């Protein structure tokens, strides 16, 4: 069970700030998340970056139960 963490517009679109998913790669986890959270979330996800354990990552990377996957929509700090 990898942990998904959602921020800003992604959190709002999902209606949740975290979720647990059983997928074995980042792509699998995100597919499950879209199934659970719906099309608004899918829209935000399509323009978001994905980080794993605090660093930029990519869809094919394998995930284990201790991994944290973050969905980062376009940023607007400062």
């Amino acid at each position, binding site marked *: 069970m990898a942990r998904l963490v959602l921020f800003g517009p992604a959190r709002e679109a999902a209606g949740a700030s975290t979720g647990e998913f059983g997928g074995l790669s980042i792509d699998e986890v995100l597919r499950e998340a879209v199934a659970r959270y719906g099309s608004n979330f899918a829209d935000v996800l399509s323009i978001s*970056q994905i980080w794993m354990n605090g660093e*930029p990552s990519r869809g094919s990377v394998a995930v284990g139960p201790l991994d944290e996957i973050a969905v*980062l929509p376009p*940023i607007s*700090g*400062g």
Partner: protein
Amino acid sequence: MEPSPSLDWVALSPSSLSADELTTWATRASCGAVVTFCGTVRHTSHEHDDIVALEYETGEEMAMGRLREVVAEARTRWPRLGAVAIHHRTGRVELRETAVVVAVSSPHRHEAFEAAQFCIDAVKDCVPMWKRELWEGGSAWSQDGRDILNVAEVPEVASVTGVNGAHDT
């Protein structure tokens, strides 16, 4: 907040930022220049002209990691910098309040200007942070979102070639 005993000081804070505290902290006997940038809440955004507050959301660990990377990159690009501080608010920030402060000291002024500008550019381009705009009767996520860059990808401002005096304070 306890001032940093080192030459670097990054922080996320849910309460008021003090540009004065950072400027004073950054002032060193070896440095003739301190440049301080305050990003303040203004009433106009791309979409609205009646903003009353902003609300910042972040992932604390990711953001702190990126802030540290920004300072490290600034020191790589401008090795003679003195002190470098970046503080960013979280949560609700009212009109005219300061959402982010950068303070940079250096022996000579042009590197302090360049590094301070780099730091705030890099905060905006690299630090995971999301802004909600609040106006009378409504709110929405900021529409000026940017793709997250790596710190090394942030361009620096062009260096100056002054007529004279470019290398004193």
